[in-house]
């Protein structure tokens, strides 16, 4: 005769649910320290007059003064605009170009398809700093580009064009990365559907718009998300190519945050830099929520 010991409810609760959840504690601890605490700290700092040199970080509480300084600074609004140019171009031009290239290479049946893909992908494996240094030479007034075009123009000193030069270099570097992801996605297309479309007399544009693109939509969303995250935090390309210049006209969020916080003979207003960090955080959170909603809707 066997005896059956029924566990107490609290022990059962611990075994079934408490214990698994407790395994989250180490990860959450690390998350709190490494990810969440800087966010909270930057929010707190944005209400203090902190130069960065003081041992007492919380010397003077100034309320929303840092945000006021920021919103009255025209260079902040330039950086705001440029960041959205950057993000917009990355999720539209770059993704569209990558999709176009991947379709051409995938369906083009080129003899040297692997070589072409490798060449286009190659910039993505290089360090952005070295790429920027090379492009700085190419775009300089006595650089290769002007010599080819036979013009005397300063691309990086142009108020209106400097940021677009930076965006161009960024797209040039990362389009191959997006293209490879699309290329992998295209491999999942069922060829028989395309053949059936051929039999039905569908033309190329019809096949691309009605079969290929709907099939790779999840990959498009993936690339858009990757580019969105990457372009919001862009720093190295801008800093090396233009250092935010001429006179702050190609600043983005990260570079103007650096300028306020660390720049030699700069404003030394780390509180303002923290405000920018917090604004960035809020914007990224908003985009994150939109993304999650869109993906959920897609799944449904």
């Amino acid at each position, binding site marked *: 005769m066997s005896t059956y010991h029924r566990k107490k409810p609290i022990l059962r609760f611990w075994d079934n*649910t*408490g214990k698994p*959840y*407790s395994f*989250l*504690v*180490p990860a*959450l*601890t690390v998350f*709190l*320290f490494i990810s969440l605490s800087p966010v909270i700290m930057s929010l707190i700092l944005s209400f203090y007059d*902190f*130069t*960065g*040199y*003081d*041992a007492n*970080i919380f010397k003077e509480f100034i309320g929303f003064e840092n945000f006021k300084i920021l919103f009255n600074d025209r260079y902040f609004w330039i950086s705001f605009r440029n960041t959205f140019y950057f993000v917009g171009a990355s999720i539209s031009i770059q993704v569209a170009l990558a999709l176009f290239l991947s379709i051409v290479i995938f369906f083009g049946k080129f003899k040297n398809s692997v070589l072409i893909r490798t060449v286009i992908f190659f910039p993505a494996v290089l360090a952005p700093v070295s790429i920027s240094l090379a492009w*700085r030479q190419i775009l*300089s*007034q*006595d650089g290769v580009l002007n010599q080819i075009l036979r013009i005397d*123009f*300063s*691309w*990086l*000193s142009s*108020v209106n064009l*400097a940021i677009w030069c930076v965006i161009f270099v960024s797209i040039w570097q990362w389009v191959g990365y997006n293209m490879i992801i699309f290329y992998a996605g295209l491999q999942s297309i069922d060829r028989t559907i395309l053949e059936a479309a051929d039999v039905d007399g569908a033309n190329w544009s019809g096949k691309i718009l009605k079969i290929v693109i709907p099939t790779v939509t999840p990959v498009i969303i993936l690339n858009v998300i990757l580019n969105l995250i990457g372009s919001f935090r862009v720093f190295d390309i801008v800093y090396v190519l*233009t*250092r935010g*210049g*001429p*006179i*702050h*006209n190609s600043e983005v969020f990260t570079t103007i945050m650096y300028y306020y*916080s*660390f*720049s*030699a*003979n*700069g*404003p*030394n207003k*780390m509180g303002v830099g923290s405000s920018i960090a917090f604004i960035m955080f809020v914007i990224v959170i908003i985009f994150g929520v939109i993304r999650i909603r869109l993906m959920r809707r897609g799944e449904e």
Partner: protein
Amino acid sequence: MKRILLWAIVVVLTLTVASTFGLIGCKEEADSEESVGEEDRPIEESVTEKEEVVLRFTDWQGGNDGILKSYQELIGIFEGENPGATLEYQQYTVTTYNEFLKPALSGGTAPDLFAVYPGTDLVEVAESGALRDLKDDIDDEWKSWLGPAYDFKGMWYDEGLWVVAQDVWTECIWYHKDMLQEIGWDAIDSTDAFSVEDYIAMVDPASEAGYDVILAGFVETWCYFDPYFNFIHQQQDSEKPDMVEQAMNGEISWQQDIFRNGFTVFEKLHEAGVWRQDALSMDYQVQAFGDWLERKGIFMWGQGDWFAGSMKEEENNPDNPNIGIVQFPLVNNSSTVAFNKNFGTDIGVYSQGENQELAIEWIKLTNSPRAAEIFISNGVNPAAGVDLNNMPEIDNPILEECVKLYNSPGRHSEVYYYNPDAVKALGDGIGNVLLGVDTVDNVLAQLDDICGYQG
């Protein structure tokens, strides 16, 4: 309900673990503070007892071999004279230095000795209480070594002496003499200057010869405002009162011709093509200077004597002293040459450091006559004055010229002012005028606002 309870448990556990780590950290910090207290005794005592003392020292001279070699020699002397003392020297670059210094100061882990950007940054660091006031530490002997450098405004703030200069510069324009002669102009004395019109007149012949007239890089806006201050000082009848300082303090208006003329110099040079358009997006230390070394331009809108150690030997030797220097362009016929005599690196003593007396000994050594000889032998212009009648032998012609120039009399032009917002607005303002996105009158009106000029 069950889910809320679960999450509550997870959060409580997480916070408990987190706070435990935090408390352990605090405990260790408190322990280390105690040990600091125990060892907090005069340095002489600890050195005579031959205890190990490590002094840490940082600056922004990364890439400057002359400074590095000089300090390596001086460290050897210092450690020899202070048994048991070790000096660890760490270089950062100009553009990344604050990334190191700020966290170090705010985290309480700053080195015993550290450089501070003179001018606006000095104000912030001095006000933070991180620097020891060295005014009473400098004895008469030390003062005599420093000579006129003791009065550098950039070392003083609010009647305290917060940093001391190690090397100095005569901020001016450098040029290749043979290239200038090639376009039909003669070299002039280093104490002299070409006018704005002279530079404009050089544009066509230089262009025909395939050169730029001046290579410049204005990404660092001090390449705008340092020469701008010089332009104002050139137009003053005497050095005092300093009109820039008066305007910075809101005592006089920026909206007058003497300040407008400074902008005009930049506008004329820029519009005439004396430097190329992309000078506005170039940096002077690498791009402009690199191009100038490659002889793409005749002049270099220079910013310091550290260039002296980087000259190509074939055109900077006693047999071929081909590099020359001249002062910033003369604003007009009635202006007088003014010298931008500044310092390159400076050092302050960390007010929370354990070995401050020893740290001061190090700074004094770097200002001594024997340090001056070491600096010069490595192509660096020393802050400690050099007797022009008893000059050490210098086999670097341009450095010799710089040392002579720095130690010669002439109208001194200040470049360090303590109104960061105004200095920033001025630098950006000149750039914006050259870019055509702002007007001189608008920039000057903004400066009046920033400086609090009441009319």
